[in-house]
C-alpha cells in the first residue's frame, strides 16, 4: 500500500504507523459536562465503517508528521492524505 504523504510524496505504508480513527484528534474537554462519558466515547467507541474511513497514520520513517488518511476499508483505496492537525488551530 502506498500512502502519498503531503510532505514526502508516495511512500510504502511500512514507513508509517497506524493509530486508528481520526476522531482521536478531537480530545474532549476534561472540564466539560459529562467528561467521563465523553472520554469513554473518545477512547473506546468507534464507527468502524465498511467504507471511507478517516484515520491517523504517523510517518515515523519519513517526516514524522501525523496524517489524516481517508481510506476505503473495503478496497484500501486512499482518497486523501492531509496533515492531521486541525487547520484552524495549527500554527
Amino acid at each position: 500500500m502506498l500512502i502519498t504523504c503531503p510532505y514526502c510524496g508516495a511512500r510504502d505504508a511500512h514507513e508509517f504507523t497506524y493509530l486508528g480513527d481520526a476522531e482521536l484528534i478531537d480530545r474532549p474537554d476534561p472540564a466539560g459536562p459529562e467528561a467521563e462519558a465523553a472520554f469513554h466515547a473518545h477512547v473506546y467507541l468507534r464507527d468502524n465503517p465498511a467504507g471511507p474511513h478517516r484515520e491517523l497514520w504517523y510517518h515515523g520513517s519519513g517526516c514524522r508528521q501525523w496524517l489524516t488518511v481517508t481510506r476505503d476499508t473495503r478496497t484500501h483505496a486512499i482518497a486523501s492524505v492531509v496533515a492531521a492537525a486541525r487547520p484552524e488551530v495549527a500554527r
Partner: protein
Amino acid sequence: MSRLAQGGLIDRAKPLQFTFDGKRYSGFAGDTLASALIANDVRLVARSFKYHRPRGIVTAGSEEPNALVELRDGARREPNSRATTAELYDGLTAESQNRWPSLAFDAMAVNQLFAPFFGAAFYYKTFMWPKAAWEKLYEPMIRRAAGLGRASELPDPDHYDKVQAHCDLLVIGAGPAGLAAALTAGRAGARVILVDEDFRLGGRLNTENVEIDGSAGLDFVAATEAELRALPNLRVLTRTTAFGVYDDTYAALERVADHLAEPAPYQPRQRLWRINARRAVLAAGALDRPIVFGGNDRPGVMLAAAMETYVSRFAAAPASRLAVFANNDAAWGSAFAAHDAGVTVSALIDTRADVSPVLAAKAKARGLRVVLGGRICDAHGKALTAIDIVAGGRTERLAVDGLAMSGGFSPNLQLTCHHNGKPVWNDDIAAFVPGTPPPGMSVAGAANGSYDLGDCLREGAARAVGALADLGIAATALTVATATLNGTAVSAFWHVAEARTKAFVDFQNDVCASDIVLAEKEGFRSVEHLKRYTTLGMATDQGKLSNMPGLAIMAAITGKSIPETGTTVFRPPYTPVAIGALAGHHRGKDFRPTRLTPLHGWAREQGAVFIEAGPWLRAQYFPRGAEKTWDQAVNREVRAVREGVGLIDVSTFGKIDLRGRDVGAFLDRVYINTFSTLAVGKTRYGLMLREDGFVMDDGTTARLAPDRWVMTTTTANAAKVFQHLEFCAQVLWPELDVQLTSVSEQWAQVAIAGPRARDVLARVIDDPATIDNGAFPYMSAMETRVMGGVRARVFRLSFAGDLGFEIAVPARQGEALARALMQAGAEFDITPYGLETLGVMRIEKGHVTTNELNGQTTALDLGFGKMAKKGDFIGKVMAGRPGLVDPDRPRLAGFKPVDPNDRLRAGAHFIAVGAAATTENDLGWMTSTTWSPTFGHALGLGFVKGGTARIGERLRAVDPLRGGDVLVEVCNPVFFDPEGVRLRG
C-alpha cells in the same frame, strides 16, 4: 526411447545426466525433468494422496497436480517440486514421494480397496470410538499416511534476495499478447518490466506451429526478444512468476539459480521482486482442462496441450499409440502436431457431433480416424493400455498407451481475483473470464478469453496503449497484419456419465465425481462447502485443473447453471512460493537489526557479556578473574557501587529534546505531575499515562534553559513515547509552541554511581567546582564541558539509589568518556557494571521498570497516586473510573523471604497463609526478584491486594510451575536507603 529424432527446442549437443529414484537417465539442455522422463519412457512418476494410485505427468506447466517429486538431496531437498517446471541440469537427482516401499509397489495402495468407505469427508463420521482412540491411534496413523514429500529437516543452505522495482507497465506473461504489450510499451519509451514463469519467452509460440506476418512464430519470438532486450527502458525477467497482487504492489518470484545444481557463490537461489507498477497487463494465457471419465488419472493420460508441448517443444513423445479426447478445436491442432511429428494417433474422439469442415479436412488429409459425438468412458491399465470409447450407442475398446484429453481452456485469471474480483462466466468459451481486475490492471489474450492468435497480439498491444494513455504516455500499437487462424470453437463437456470406474476431478487429492455427488446429497452445495468437504481444489495446484469440472458437475447435479452454482475465488500465491524467498536475508542473527550503543566497543574491551534487550545488545555483566558464574560478577559489581563507584552505559534510554515557549505547559499535560514550575538547572521524575488512564512510561525531564528541555524515556518505550508526544504536539495542541527532536542516537550517556562518584566526575569535568553538593544538589542538571571542552549534559540522578551522575556527551565521544571515567576512577577501583547489576540495585531501591510498567498498571497501583496534579493531563479522566481506583486492585509492595535462605521468583502468586492456592484466593504476583548482596537475602517487588497496607504481613509466594512455595513478608518497596540520604550525599 521416445525422443523424437528431430525437432524441439532442446540442445542435442548438450546431453545431461540425471537420476530418478536412483536410476540414471539422460536428457538434453532445454528439457524439463518431465520432458526428459517422457523421453526416457518413464510413465509412472508419482502416487496420489489418498488412494496412492499410480500417476503420470498430466501437464507441462506449473499447474501439474501429479508429477511432484523430491528434487535434489541433503539440505537442498525440495519436496513437492513439479517435474514439469524443474529445468534439467547435469547431475539432477529426483525421487518420487509419498510411497512405500517403492513407487512401483506402494503398500498404501491398499487404500483403494477401502475406497467405498473412504469417500468425501468420511473421517468426520468415524474414528470416534472409543473416545481416546482418535488421538492415540487413528490420528497418528493418519498423520503418518498423509502429507506429500519429506522436508530436508536441515537449515536451508541457500540465500534469498529481495528487490524493490518501479515501472510504468508490468507485463505478466510473455506469450503473444504479453510480447505485443511489452513491445508496444517499450517502443513508446515507458518503463516496462516483462515477466514470465518459463525459462523461454514465447508462451504458446514455443509449441504451436504458427505464422505471424508470414514468418514462423519462433522467429517472431526471437526478433521480439532481441528488440526488447536492446531497450534500455525495458527489463525482461524469465523464470519469474508474478504470484500476488497486493495494494499498489505486485509480488514476483525470480528463480535465479534453480536451474543449476546449486547457486554460484554469492548468488541468491531466488529473488523476491516487489514491483510498484503504475499499470499492469495480465497476459498469463490459459490452461487446458481435464475431462472427468473413468480412469482419467492413469499414467499415460495427459492434457492435449501438454502432449503437444512435449512433442513439439521437447521432441519427446508421450506415447507410441495415442488417442485424443476433446470437446474443442485446439485439441485437434495438438493431434495434428503429434501426427506430424510421427506419433501414431489412433483416434480423435470429439464429444461434438459436428466440427468445422476445415478441421475435418485436415484430419482426413492426415488419415486420422475421427469419432464425432463420442466419449471415452473408461481408461484401463496401471499405466494406460486401453480406452473404452462410447459412440453411437456402442462401446469399443481401443488399445492405446497415450491419451490426450482436453475439456477446453480456462483463462489464467487468478491474479485478477486478488483484490476480491469475481470472475464472470462466458458461455461462448465455456469458461470464466476476468471480472473486475485490481486497479490499474487490464487483461489481454487467452487470459482474457481471447484464444485466437491474431486477437492475442492485437489485444496485448491495445492494452498497452490504453494503460500508457492513462499515464499520459503516447504509444503506437504493434501492428499485425496476418496471424495463423486456428479454430477456437468449444462446446462445454465435463463429465462422462457412462464411466464405470473411478472418475477423478481433483487428481492429487483423489476427489472423484462420486464425492461431489455425495457432498451434494449431504447438503454441501455451496462451492466453498464443496471444496472444504471434499478437498476439491485444495491440492498444490489450488484447483487450476479441478475447480471447473467440479463446479460443472455440481451444477449438473443441482440443475443450476455454472454461474448460479458459484465462482471460484483465487488467492495469492498464483503458484507456491518458497518461504525462504519471502523471508530473504532476515534469518539467523540477521533476523532483525541489532542496535549497538555508542559505548559498545568500550564494553567489549572491558570483557562484557552481552545480552539481547529488545532491539539492543547491552552489556549484561563484566566477568573478572576467576569468577565462574554470572552472579559472582554481579555481586562484586553491586558491592563496588555501594562501597566505591561503578559506571554503566545508559545510552539506550530514549532522549528527546523539547524546545519552545510552551514546553512546561506541554509537559504538564503529558505527565501526571507538574513540570512548568521546574527551575532551569533542575530535573524531575515524571509519570506519563495513556489516555485510558494506565501508565505508559516514566522518566526524568530536565530544564536546561527557559525554553530548552530534555526528556529521558525508558529504553523499551522510546519510540512509542516520542510518537505519542508528536501526536500531542502536532494534533492535540498545535497551538502550543513545542518542537520535539529525538536525540536518542545523538547522545551517549553514562551513569556513575557510588560514594566516590563525585570524585571521579570531578577529574573529568572541566570545572569541578560546579558539581559540589551545594552547587549541584540531587536532581540538578546542567550543560557543561568535560574532557577538556567536550560538550556534555550532566544530571545528578541515580537509578541505583546511591550518589550518582549521568553524563551525556555527543555519541562519537561516548567511548572516550567511558575511558576517561575509567582512568579517573582507577584509584577508587571504578567498576563497570551491566544490566544485571542495575537490575539488582533498582529492586533494592524499589524503582519500577518494564516488569511493573507493563501497560496493565495505574499510577495508584505503583504508589504514585499522590503525584497526580489537580489540573488536566492525558489519562486523568479515565484514570478516575471505578475499576481503576478500586482499593481491591493489587498495589506495589516489597517482599522478602521470611527464611533468608529462600529464593524468590518473579511470576509467583501471593496466597494468604492457610488458604488454598486457587484463582479465588489469588492476591497478586511477584514482578521482579533478585538476590541482594547488600542485604544478604532475596528481595522482590510485586503487586498485592492492599499493597503497603500489608507491610509486616506474611504471605505465601506460590510458584506451582517450579514447585515453589515460599513464606514472604510484605515490606516497603524501597529497601535501600528509604530516606534517600545516600542519593543526596
